[in-house]
């Protein structure tokens, strides 16, 4: 059996479902190969949708397989070098991050960044990354507050609940046709389901169903609520409400063997086939650059 997987061309204009389809297919094909070394052949690929590329980078980085890439065009080779496809951008000091990201102000993307979830200044990291994204997208001031909220709550969530060592962030602005910011935030933790199991919360509802765990997390059932005050669990639910209802964007979450999609057309929770299991959690958001005129940030903060 061949150990070669052909990476398809997944254009930035491609439908989001199609980008996920390709991503799951690559993972499935790679896992199926009974050989420690797998070759990803890029001879058919010229462009990549960020929602295809970001999970692919994570998967490659964390896979037990030795994944070798071949037949990359000079353009892709250079692009992969700039987004740190092979090694991710890691940093110890915020000044290092700031220096590394400074040349990206004129680009439409940031490198695939890996950060320590225990680092003391996650806020400082977010400020640096968000400043770059705002410059790249050329968005108005109205996007700043919802962006701060959404990124802040999601990053805070993974640092508090994932039990992981690292968090990851990648973004790409499509400022011409699509007019949106595509952001990926991920962790290498125990998954949403694992987090409920570890905390021994809501197990009567979840049973062994990862899809149900994802639904609870998205509806704001926190493992850390105080006994007499439900003060936690607003992060994801408010983020989704703000993004989907307020900004008309799309929200996706993949964790363990469950997938969640929420956009203006509705909300789906999906149990993936048994052979498909994502290590940790990944959130992907399509954030429209143009904020609707009547958008009122506080209106979407769940009370």
């Amino acid at each position, binding site marked *: 059996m061949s150990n070669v997987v052909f990476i398809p061309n997944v254009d930035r204009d491609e439908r989001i479902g199609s980008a996920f389809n390709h991503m*799951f297919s690559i993972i499935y094909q790679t896992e199926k190969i009974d050989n420690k070394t797998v070759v990803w052949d890029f001879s058919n690929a010229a462009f990549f949708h960020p929602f295809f590329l970001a999970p692919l980078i994570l998967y490659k980085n964390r896979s037990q397989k030795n994944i070798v890439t071949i037949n990359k065009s000079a353009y892709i080779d250079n692009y992969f070098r700039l987004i740190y496809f092979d090694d991710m951008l890691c940093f110890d000091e915020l000044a290092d991050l700031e220096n590394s990201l400074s040349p990206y102000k004129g680009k439409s993307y940031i490198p695939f960044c890996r950060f320590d979830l225990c680092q003391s200044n996650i806020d400082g990291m977010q400020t640096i990354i968000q400043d770059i994204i705002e410059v790249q997208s050329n968005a108005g001031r109205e996007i700043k507050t919802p962006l*701060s909220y959404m990124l802040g*709550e999601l*990053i805070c969530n993974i640092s508090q609940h994932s039990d992981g060592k690292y968090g990851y962030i990648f973004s790409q602005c499509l400022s011409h046709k699509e007019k949106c910011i595509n952001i990926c935030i991920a962790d290498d933790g125990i998954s949403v389901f694992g987090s409920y199991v570890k905390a021994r919360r809501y197990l009567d509802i979840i049973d062994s169903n990862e899809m149900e765990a994802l639904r609870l997390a998205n509806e704001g059932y926190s493992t850390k609520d105080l006994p007499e005050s439900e003060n936690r669990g607003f*992060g994801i639910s408010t983020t989704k409400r703000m993004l989907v209802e307020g900004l008309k964007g799309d929200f996706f979450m993949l964790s363990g063997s469950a997938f969640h999609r929420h956009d203006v057309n*509705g909300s*789906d*929770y999906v149990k993936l086939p048994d052979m498909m299991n994502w290590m940790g959690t990944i959130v992907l958001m399509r954030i429209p650059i143009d904020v609707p005129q009547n958008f009122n940030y506080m209106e979407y*903060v769940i009370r």
Partner: protein
Amino acid sequence: MKKIIKIAELIGSDIRSRQNADHILNSIGNFSGVVELDFNGVEFISRSFADEVYTIAKENRDNVVLRNMEGIVDSMMSVVSESRTNKRVRKTENANMKEFSDMESLSAYLSTF
């Protein structure tokens, strides 16, 4: 005796993570007089951080007062205060639950959006 802690200087003007509350607690230390947390210059606080501030000012310490919260900072603090004193009313999401046992059916679903 009064101690004023300027939050913008201590943490920054955009404050997101819960852990930032530790900076405030460290600044307060064992001071037993009145502590004013001055939010002048703070433009954004996350709900998580607001929740921690609420715990410090309204539950754990009786000597801490909040000053100069304005705009969305003040609004967020009010939301947190409200949710800490009133029972949360949950809205169940109107969602579809789908199970796929093979890649073909998953692929067919993904092709719908």
